[in-house]
């Protein structure tokens, strides 16, 4: 009995059941037929012979693309010129010989589609040869690390990013916010971009329910594409009995980008990513002093209250991490480490708690980098350093302060920006105050009275240029219902309400979302 392929028989049998069918289209081809040259000439081509291929026949929009055709030739004549029509209005041309790769002159195609790139070569007799190749241009969604902003959502604190913060309408992409909702949770506190040595981008978000990390989806890496908890509230509560954590996560960027360079500060402790150590923290609303120990990197002092700020500084010896907080009553300090927390050195002793630090790379008229430090509720407690913390000078007092019935309003946020005529702004719940370099004097840039009574300006962020000048957008306390207000320019007034919570949130959190580098 002759051999009969059982596979084939089975396939035929299954074919009785009907089939799914698909039809695909591919690229075009351009068949050509060549003639010989009479005489003793070798080769069988009609002169000139254009031979071209695309280095990539499928590319993303705005991606450099090139063709190669330097193997084109003439067996009987001399080539003199070449010309490439990119089929989108762009052309390239030159004298022979061409470079090994001829690149699209506009840096790539701006619109998706199929483009027929045509090459024409010409010899000294004016004879031409042509070749063509199709290039398929597709739309490639940007990877989110390049996106302009990260937003932390509203009352159910989802996380989404906006593909273009200035587009209208904005397009938001949810980073699987459902994984972050924890019953009874409050709201997120801070977040940071971080990038490791492999260029992989991650988001670290501190919340009052722990620390989460989001790694951009990579099918080859497990655990990517969704939020993973890295520090849980259970851990916090077990160790410190806290029910609220002030988290601030940041990255020390360095040449090695070691895993331990992600530091988190929560409660009263600074600790490296790879080792939790012993954690102590305390309730945000607890006014009882507690002695807490900082374990990470042999931090040398006892912290009385919370350590509220960490920043990465380009110090004289390289990258440093500055950690500022309040260590004893009425005594704030800043310590720094340049070896990932192995040792800490006192940078400055302040007269009040370190509420915020703003590290500005601004090059002043002195030609030096500027380091600014703000403290507490004391209108004399604002300091700056221009020599990497070796010496400190006060920034001066505000001319007037309006408390609006709130006692000792704490500075809740600080930003710096380098627009012409403006240098720094801080808010303290009811005031927006700014200063301009190099005067150092402060001017209150107040919101409209009566409009926002009993509400708290909790954050102060800047989004580029608004209205042609430097602008500041104040975010309401997220627990309040409402939007936000925005200011234009540097003068008092011109405050306006932003429409839409998403707009407010996105703009407000933009500052957090920017990568460090």
């Amino acid at each position, binding site marked *: 009995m002759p051999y009969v392929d059982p596979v084939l028989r089975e396939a035929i049998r299954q074919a*009785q059941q*009907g*089939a799914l069918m698909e*039809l695909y289209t591919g*690229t075009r*081809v351009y068949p050509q*037929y*060549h003639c010989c040259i009479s005489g003793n000439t*070798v080769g069988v081509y009609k002169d000139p012979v254009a031979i071209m291929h695309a280095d990539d026949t499928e590319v993303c929009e705005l991606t450099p693309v090139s063709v190669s055709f330097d193997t084109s030739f003439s067996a009987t004549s001399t080539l003199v010129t070449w010309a490439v029509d990119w089929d989108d209005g762009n052309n390239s041309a030159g004298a022979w010989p061409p470079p090994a790769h001829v690149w699209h002159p506009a840096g790539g195609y701006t619109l998706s589609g199929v483009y027929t790139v045509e090459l024409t070569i010409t010899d000294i007799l004016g004879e031409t040869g042509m070749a063509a190749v199709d290039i398929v241009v597709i739309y490639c969604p940007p990877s989110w690390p390049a996106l302009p902003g990260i937003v932390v959502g509203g009352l159910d604190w989802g996380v989404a990013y906006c593909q273009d913060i200035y587009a209208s309408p904005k397009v938001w992409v949810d980073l699987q916010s459902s994984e972050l909702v924890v019953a009874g949770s409050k709201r997120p506190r801070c977040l940071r971009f971080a990038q490791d040595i492999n260029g992989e981008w991650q988001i670290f978000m501190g919340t009052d329910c722990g620390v989460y990390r989001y790694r951009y989806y990579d099918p080859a890496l497990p655990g990517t594409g969704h939020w993973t908890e890295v520090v849980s509230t259970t851990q916090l509560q077990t160790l410190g009995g806290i029910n609220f954590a002030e988290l601030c996560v940041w990255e020390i960027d360095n040449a090695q980008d070691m895993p331990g360079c992600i530091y988190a500060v929560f409660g009263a402790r600074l600790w490296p990513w790879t080792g939790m150590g012993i954690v102590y923290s305390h309730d945000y609303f607890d006014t009882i002093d507690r002695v807490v120990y900082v374990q990470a990197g042999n931090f040398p002092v006892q912290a009385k209250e919370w350590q509220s700020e960490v920043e990465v500084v380009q110090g004289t010896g390289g990258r440093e991490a500055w950690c500022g907080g309040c260590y004893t009553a009425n005594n704030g300090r800043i310590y720094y480490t340049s070896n990932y927390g192995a040792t800490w050195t006192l940078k400055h002793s302040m007269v009040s708690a370190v509420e915020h630090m703003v590290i500005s790379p601004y090059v002043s008229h002195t030609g030096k980098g500027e380091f600014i430090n703000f403290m507490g509720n004391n209108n004399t407690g604002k300091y700056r350093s221009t020599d990497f913390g070796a010496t400190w000078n006060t920034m001066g007092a505000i001319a007037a302060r309006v408390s609006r019935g709130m006692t000792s309003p704490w500075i809740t946020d600080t930003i710096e920006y380098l627009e012409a005529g403006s240098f720094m702004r801080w808010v303290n719940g009811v005031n927006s105050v700014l200063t301009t370099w190099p005067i150092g004097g402060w001017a209150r840039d107040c919101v409209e009275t009566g409009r926002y009574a009993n509400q708290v300006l909790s954050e102060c962020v800047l989004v580029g240029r608004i209205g042609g000048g430097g602008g500041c957008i104040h975010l309401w306390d997220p627990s309040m219902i409402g939007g936000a207000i925005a200011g234009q320019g540097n003068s008092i007034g011109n405050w306006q309400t932003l429409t839409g919570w998403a707009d407010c949130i996105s703009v407000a959190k933009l500052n957090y979302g920017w990568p460090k580098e």
Partner: protein
Amino acid sequence: MIVGEISSLSNIISIGADDSRGGWEMQFRVMGDTDAIDINQRVIFRWSPLMGYEYLYGWDGRWWTGFDGWVLPYRFSFDVAGSQITATAQTSDGFLRRGWCQGIGFVDRDTTPRDHYHQFDSVTGVPIERMTLGRIVRHLLGYYDQLGNPPATNPDWVAHTNLVYHVTQNPAGWITLDFVTTTPFVWPGTPDGSMRTDRYIVRETKNLWDTIRQIASNEFFVAYFDKWDRFHYCRHPMYAATPPGAVCNFDEKMSVGKPVVSTRLQDQVRQVILHAVTDTGSTLHAEYPGSFAWVYGNIHEQSYIRCNSQAALDHWAHVLFLYMNRPYTVQWNLPGLAGLLFEINEPVSITYTGTDANGVHINWTNEKFWISNIMVYPRGNNTSGVSVLTLESDNGISP
């Protein structure tokens, strides 16, 4: 490379191949978008059995490529509400049918080194490449000659078309020469090699495919494109020294509708006469049967054959006689798109015995046939179909 999918816009009318054409063809419609396809654009048809496919040891829901070809100039009609393209796509034989070639006098100069690429010799290259019909076909289509000089420009990309793909010399090409037989025929050592010849004239043509097919027929080869657009140049399986066995056996369980058996006259050709030229310029002749089978009848006489072996020529004459006097042509219907699992000139077999109920008096057990035509008709909005195979009886060609 896939550019897009037009499954939702399209409707396949038929996919098929015929031995006389040497390639596959698909007819289809595209609705509602006259830019969905373009002339000379690649189209690929894929299918998968709805119920999966149990391959001996487990379910295998694979997708099959049923056709891979290129769109011919098409037409479309339209009204205010919509449009419809009616198009045909063919494998690359469609291009070659519209391709031209100059007249070329090929020659093998033996111990005199070649001057150019229309010449072969016995001294250039390691290994040396003497002229065969397969190498002529290769030259016409395109190849990378690296045998060394002469000519002084070697290595050279040598071609009369731009269809053949080469990673460095012609990356824009799209067909392969992997299935082209170029090695020389030797009887009985390599009986299915390509015939050596010292002189061969390729006449100027405006149908390069016809020229290639003619070269193939001159040595009882076949030139064809399979459904995946791969070019084959090889001994016609019927004339192979050892014909291949049936790839599948059809029985009544594998039939839909009604098979049709066409009986044929078996005394149409009383003798086959073949005239061949050897590479040295001498002639060979073969006749089968040696004396006329019948007093009257047709004689099939064929010339321009290239053959260097009397035994081979005798064999071909015998096979041709049997084929021309075969008793049956059968139309066998397979379910669904099963026809896309076969190729032209593949052998299959049929096992069937008639019954008293249907009064069919055939008793076939693994009766061998050769596929000469395949037509597949998708139906039911591209979810089912029927395949019609035309089978030519073997008639003893296979031992």
